[in-house]
């Protein structure tokens, strides 16, 4: 056996022993950081099950005694936190805005990816440029516009803009449309399908993973949105969950156990959504391509 081969073998076995040492260390590190990461969340759950007088004890109490499941009932039935109504408002806001985003962004993305028309590439550059505009410069005139229209106080300002597309999702969906083979469009055309039909019944189903990413991101964003509803809504009965939770906090500052229960209830739908869409989430981010 040559010297080089021996050296190679030695270094390989060295790497193997190194791996045997490194792997557990890596786990230790990961789980250590993960533990710190998850403690706040655990504390949220623990606090939500405590009687109020056990929220701040010295030393901290890790297991509530007794475990008060009824905190959840109390939180949701609290007059300051009308859960049913808040949930309905949140669903309305997030749902309609997401429907709008899905329809408008997929149509526009298809236009950019699959149709030839004069000035298309210039418009696309404009689209990319608009992604750089921070929301803060458009916030005040947009508010004024909606005020003039008499829409302030209702959901229209939060929902209507979604029906006019948003640059990031258009960009994302366009990348997907571009990756589909042209033969599909051609054969549909030969079969006499109109453009809308080709779009709706052939192309759209094929980009479903990307559409899912846009839908999930938009739903998440609107569900968690605080500033939008804060600016446009003033009537309690129209508040979504995020604003309701805040109102609850200002009203019942000391009821930490109920506040934590309510916080968890507001978070759970997003957790379910994330778990359901996790794979597409990560895939979608990968395919968006930071380098493109």
């Amino acid at each position, binding site marked *: 056996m040559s010297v080089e081969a021996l050296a190679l073998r030695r270094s390989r076995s060295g790497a193997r022993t190194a791996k045997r040492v490194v792997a557990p260390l890596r786990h230790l*590190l990961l789980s250590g950081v993960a533990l710190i990461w998850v403690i706040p969340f655990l504390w949220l759950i623990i606090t939500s099950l405590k009687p109020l007088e056990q929220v701040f004890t010295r030393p901290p109490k890790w297991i509530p005694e007794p475990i008060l499941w009824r905190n959840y009932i109390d939180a949701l039935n609290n007059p300051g936190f009308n859960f049913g109504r808040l949930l309905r408002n949140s669903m309305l806001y997030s749902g309609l805005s997401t429907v709008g985003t899905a329809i408008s962004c997929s149509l526009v993305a298809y*236009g950019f990816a699959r149709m030839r028309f004069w000035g298309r590439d210039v418009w696309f550059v404009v689209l990319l440029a608009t992604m750089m505009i921070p929301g803060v410069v458009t916030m005040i005139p947009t508010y004024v516009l909606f005020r003039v229209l008499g829409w302030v106080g209702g959901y229209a300002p939060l929902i209507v803009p979604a029906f006019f597309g948003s640059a990031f999702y258009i960009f994302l969906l366009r990348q997907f449309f571009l990756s589909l083979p042209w033969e599909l469009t051609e054969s549909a055309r030969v079969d006499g399908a109109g453009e809308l039909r080709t779009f709706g019944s052939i192309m759209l189903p094929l980009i479903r993973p990307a559409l899912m990413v846009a839908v999930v991101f938009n739903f998440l964003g609107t569900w968690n949105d605080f500033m939008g509803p804060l600016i446009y809504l003033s009537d309690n009965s129209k508040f979504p969950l995020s604003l309701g939770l805040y109102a609850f906090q200002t009203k019942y500052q000391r009821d930490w156990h109920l506040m934590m229960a309510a916080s968890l209830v507001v978070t759970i739908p997003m957790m379910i959504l994330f778990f359901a869409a996790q794979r597409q989430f990560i895939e979608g*981010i990968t395919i968006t391509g930071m380098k493109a």
Partner: protein
Amino acid sequence: MIEAEAQARAGVPTDRARLGQRRARLLRQNVKGYAFISPWIIGLLVFSAYPVLASFYFSFTKYTVLKPPVWIGVANYANMVTQDPVYWKSVSNTLYYGLISVPLGLAFSLFLALVLNQAVVGIGVYRTVYYLPAIMPPVAATLLWMLLLDPGNGLVNSGLRSLGIGRPPGWFSEAAWAKPALIIMSLWGSGGTMLIFLAGLKDIPKTYYEAAEIDGASAWYRLLNITLPLLTPVIFFNLIMGIIGSFGVFTSAYIAGGSSSGGGYGPGGTAGGPLDSMLMYMLLLYRNAFRYFEMGYASAMAVTMFVAILSLTLVLLKTSGRWVYYEAAVPS
């Protein structure tokens, strides 16, 4: 196309009709194309172009919504930088927050992504754990941290006391510790950045590592000479997004700043915390726009922030050539 033109020039009679058909088809194509993108074009005009221009215009006016705007020249800008007692406070708060939270957040999420990118058993669980705070509604996350960082017997201070620290920080209720508290909170929520790093890491071709390994390159060498250079575009992207995000920090400051001191401060959430230590730029802007309805003044603040973000991005873009590495033609 060239053929059709040549034939047309040659004067073949039937081709003129064909050319007319072609024109008609082109026109139809254009109309259809614009029909598809029309929602976005309308949106661009109404929700981007008009507001940006109007923002600039409003910033030179006194405008309280109820009466039409009155032109006052640069008075808003002048007042902002010379008269407003809290303007510079909000600028320095925001810079303090950004200068610490952005680099820390980048380093931490990159570190997590690097560790998570290895083949580790149970990676899905780890990924979920780190990402969870990023999907939590900011209102809920802020309330949770107000509980954890309670100066009295909050979990964090209880822990610090048991470590022998007699007088732990007052966090949201103490001017010196309010911003660090916000930064800790933002770090907890940096899972989104981590995910983007992770996606970037997955994009690096495995063959590079295999080649380096055969050449006997150490893990440290591989990190410094393969991973980091190839990841610079993603680092750059996250840096810009982080800066923009830190400039716009609002919800956490609004909630924690408004009620940290037992409601002794002004109405609702625009209080800014103890000694205005959490009065962030966006908070002051919001206060001027939607509490005082000083839309002109708030527009001036918005335009200034826009210009600041834009120039910072341009400077970074200009200097990025020196450290951001773009693959020229590497087959993937």
